[in-house]
């Protein structure tokens, strides 16, 4: 072993050991846990543990609340991803305008919600969304929209949480998109302008292809993020009203740490993993087809 090699292992071994011990091994053990009936009985006495094959999965597929959680999570991702990416892109495009002044200031302000704790921000929004005394309903009232029972009506609870989440995270992708927009070739843009391309045509044929890969990466990350919603319903709605905001992760947490069905919860975690993997692959394929990658 050369001196360089020895030094290299000295540098990488500690962190690799930790990754192995707290991420890789537990993830593999999750596979094993998911085929057992690990519950509060096994927690007390390991000899009560039994191998039940795919029993946890068939159980889950027969549990209405699990399907409800999958459906709610799908709704969150389906509406949340376009909302979040769209607002990030709109803000980035606006900040990219040559006429806008004090750009660093605006960037910091728009990014600020992202660094706040989800729990604390969710607490604030719980009050902003209050039906009677909340600022949001007050603002809507000024333009003649009647009070919405944001967190009490099962049809309004998902939009309410999505408004909050979008506010919280759009600054992050806005910065990422700003970086991508600054790399859009200038002469190409000028050429399109001289050819009489409209604003929309320039966006569609010059800007969009240039930021395509960034957009795709942001979409992949956002999908993964929205599929993993947990703290928002945990703090703001406790999964309610009438289970309209129970997400897959919320279901997993309750199953695992409220009812101590750790085998069952592990099966939920694996299904979540499979969904994220599948969505990532699908999005990458779509990206390739449109030659964004």
């Amino acid at each position, binding site marked *: 072993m050369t001196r360089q090699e020895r030094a290299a292992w000295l540098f990488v071994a500690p962190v690799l050991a930790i990754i192995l011990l707290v991420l890789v091994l537990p993830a593999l053990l999750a596979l094993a846990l998911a085929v057992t009936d690990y519950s509060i009985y096994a927690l007390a006495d390991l000899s009560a543990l039994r191998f039940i094959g795919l029993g946890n999965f068939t159980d889950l597929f027969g549990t209405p609340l699990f399907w409800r959680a999958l459906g709610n999570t799908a709704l969150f991702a389906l509406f949340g991803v376009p909302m979040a990416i769209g607002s990030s892109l709109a803000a980035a495009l606006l900040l990219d305008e040559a006429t806008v002044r004090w750009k660093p200031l605006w960037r910091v302000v728009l990014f600020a919600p992202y660094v706040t704790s989800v729990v604390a921000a969710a*607490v604030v929004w719980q009050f902003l969304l209050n039906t009677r005394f909340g600022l949001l309903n007050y603002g809507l009232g000024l333009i003649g929209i009647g009070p919405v029972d944001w967190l009490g009506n099962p049809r309004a609870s998902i939009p309410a949480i999505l408004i909050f989440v979008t506010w919280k995270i759009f600054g992050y992708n806005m910065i990422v998109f700003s970086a991508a927009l600054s790399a859009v070739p200038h002469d190409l843009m000028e050429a399109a302008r001289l050819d009489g391309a409209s604003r929309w045509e320039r966006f569609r044929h010059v800007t969009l292809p240039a930021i395509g890969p960034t957009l795709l990466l942001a979409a992949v990350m956002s999908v993964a993020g929205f599929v993993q919603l947990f703290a928002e319903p945990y703090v703001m709605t406790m999964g309610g009203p009438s289970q309209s905001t129970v997400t897959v992760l919320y279901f997993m947490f309750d199953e695992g740490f409220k009812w101590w069905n750790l085998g069952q919860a592990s099966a939920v975690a694996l299904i979540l993993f499979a969904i994220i993997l599948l969505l990532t692959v699908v999005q990458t394929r779509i990206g390739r087809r449109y030659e964004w990658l």
Partner: protein
Amino acid sequence: MAVIMNRRLLRTIVSNALVASIAGLTLVPLVWMVTVSFMPRGESSHFPPPFWPSRWSWENYHELLVRRLIDGAWFDYRIMPALWNSLGIALAATVLGLLLTVPAGYAFAKLRFTGRERLLRLLIAALVVPTQVAMLPLFLAFKELGLVNSYAGVILPGLAAIFAILFVRQTVLGIPDEMIDAARLDGAGEVRIFVSIVLPLLMPITVTLAVFLFLASWNDFLWPLIVLSDQHRYTLPVAVAAIAREHAGDGELMMAAAVVTTVPVLLLFLALQRYYVSGLLGGSIKG
């Protein structure tokens, strides 16, 4: 000519006004959080919702932070202990995270060792594993090892920061090999080269990474919620969530709790935003 000037002026006004109003709207929840936290108890539950306190009062902070005797028993919301827990845990997670990932990122970029490329590919593949998959077995393992309810138990999973290794590696790739080779010819040891030549060059991104790690640890919720059961060990988000689920009606008190949780990191972010934002931008935009 005047028409063109006017159109340009109009556009300047419209785009700036638009940006300013979006920024204003974005700030409303944060400003409102602060003003309500200073309102006398119950004042925010009025219509129309007040935005400014009729009288600035510290009573919510007093109630939230000060331990007092109620019916012969000590009572407090345990926010001060949670603040210290959060601070200690976030600092430890940041320092340990830097010590582990910065040298590793350098080694993956510049040091030749067998299996480097294969390990790198494995690390990138491991990025797709959501941490939640590991949480349940990890909880059981930590329970066996006595790490449940300990600070080490909260910190450890966050140290597997693969993204941080890749982030450092990306920057180190930009350092010319000649600099390192020259030091080697001068007879400097590998550790010495890293500490006295590479590390100074990595200072800006080390600060960026430190902010990332600190914020990630400070704001982490699901894992501390799982692994901490003793209220005295709670971090701020866990403590605030516990209070929020019990005292949902006390707007002013909850806003004070939110202020205590968010303002420290907001200040940290403001102080170091130059590093944080430039880290995200990847150095492509100046100013």
